[in-house]
């Protein structure tokens, strides 16, 4: 474990797409086994920040990063860090549920298989426990051979969570995981996030203020590539220190 009590720390993290600065010297400390919510208007850099934590921005040709992202005190942008190992440790759930066009079983088994696990019994155990942790097992246990795409939107998103859990990550990054779901499916995802935080460190980007208030312990408010305010969720929503934060959380802009 880390020595300073934080799972992830960013130090002066800046990121630009070509000449456009998306993140400007962002420093944020993320506590283990807590849910940290990132809120802010569209284009404020919160998704970019999230994707910087497991280096998904590497995939974008003209993205340039500076500063440090420490995961367990190791700067993940150091040259000798294996990005593949990093992504196994820091999993990601996307805004649009993106199951592979494969069976439910093969979706969850995808990660373990690329890690070299091919034993049928071990795989079956991983699939079952991952689906259970994602609160999907009871709904799909009888048709694991069914295509992942045949599930409802909410089930697909939980399948994606199960798929991410199957590689035993320590951190889960969630990029607006419920923005495309109806209220009932959203409630299930939120309930799941609450249960997962005892075992995982969770960072969630959300547009939905009530959602941030409901699920998170800490909230960071982003605006124009900077963190304006970072505090307990309760403080952010009831007595923010900054005028901009107050305007945003009370719905006056954004």
């Amino acid at each position, binding site marked *: 474990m880390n020595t300073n009590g934080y799972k992830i720390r960013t130090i002066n993290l800046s990121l630009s797409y070509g000449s456009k600065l998306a993140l400007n010297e962002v420093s944020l400390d993320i506590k283990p086994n807590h849910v940290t919510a990132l809120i802010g208007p569209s284009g404020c850099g919160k998704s970019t920040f999230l994707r910087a934590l497991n280096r998904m921005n590497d995939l974008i*040709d003209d993205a340039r990063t500076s500063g440090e992202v420490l995961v367990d005190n190791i700067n993940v942008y150091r040259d000798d860090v294996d990005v593949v*190992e990093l992504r196994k440790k820091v*999993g*990601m759930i*996307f805004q649009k549920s993106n199951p*592979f*066009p494969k069976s439910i079983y093969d979706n969850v088994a995808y*990660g373990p298989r690329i890690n070299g696990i091919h034993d049928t019994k071990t795989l079956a155990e991983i699939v079952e426990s991952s689906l259970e942790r994602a609160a999907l097992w009871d709904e799909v246990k009888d048709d694991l051979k069914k295509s992942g795409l045949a599930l409802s939107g909410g089930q697909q998103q939980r399948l*994606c969570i199960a798929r991410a859990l199957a*590689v035993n990550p320590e951190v889960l990054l969630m990029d607006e995981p419920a923005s495309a779901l109806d209220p009932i499916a959203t409630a299930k995802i939120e309930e799941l996030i609450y249960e997962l935080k005892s075992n995982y460190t969770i960072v969630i980007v959300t547009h939905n203020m009530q959602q941030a208030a409901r699920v998170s312990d800490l909230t960071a408010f982003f605006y124009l590539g900077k963190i304006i305010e970072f505090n307990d969720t309760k403080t952010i929503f009831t007595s923010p220190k900054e005028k901009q934060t107050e305007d945003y959380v009370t719905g006056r802009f954004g």
Partner: protein
Amino acid sequence: MKTLRQKLFGLSVPALSALCAFVIVLMVLLIIGDIVLGGWGTLSWEFLSGVPKEGMTAGGIYPAIFGTFLLVVIMSIVGVPIGTITAIYLSEYASQRSILARVVRFAVNTLAGVPAIVFGLFGLGFFIQFVGIRMDQVLTGGVQLKWGQPNILWASLTMALLTLPVVIVSVEEAIRAVPRELREASLALGATKWETIRKVVLPNSITGILTGAILAVSRGAGEVAPILFTGAAYFLPKLPGSLSDQFMELGYHIYIMSTQSPDVEATRGIQYATTLVLLVLTFTLNFAAVFLRYRIRMKSIR
């Protein structure tokens, strides 16, 4: 109030354009109709399964069908993997602005525009006279002429070169149609780039690879110029049994029958029927490719 002149002009533009469009339809109908009418009478099971007889004025075209089949199979075995790998490189690995990617793309486009006869001459000069002759020197000390002459291998390789751009363009289009979300899902699970290509990108582009292969086969089956000097034969009593054998081919057969036969009149029915077989073959392949491509487009819109 419009003048009579303006009125006539207003009418003449649509009329003229409709006429031009109609001429094209008419041409297609004339060509197909003429070939079907002329070839239908000669077409029979014996024609499809028999060998040419009586100085090629009678008998069937089985050796040409078999040769065409073998040609496109060898061509696909060589061309489809190379084309697919090139497409993977262009769409997955090369940065779109890199000089190398631009050079490769330029080469592919240029290759697509080179006349078929130039490929034929290239095949003769490179595969037969350069590679083949040297192979003979190494293998038999130049005593025996085996690879240094036209054969089905050199013809297939020449054809593979000609059809490569078709494969590359189709596969690239299919690879690009694979949603970014799927790649990201795989990478976020700790898959390497190659694992992602192998397990997510390629399985989802299989129809595109198939389309490319079919279009290449359809193009290859219809071209005569590339095999003119590299392997097609006028008449062979037996089917090709090894890669160093020559072969008969449908398109070449039509060319021979209509220009080299001592009695063109006597072979007219055979010419028509052979053309009909070739047309049915390429049309079927083209329709299959159009259908598959349509399905890919639908998928990428979703």
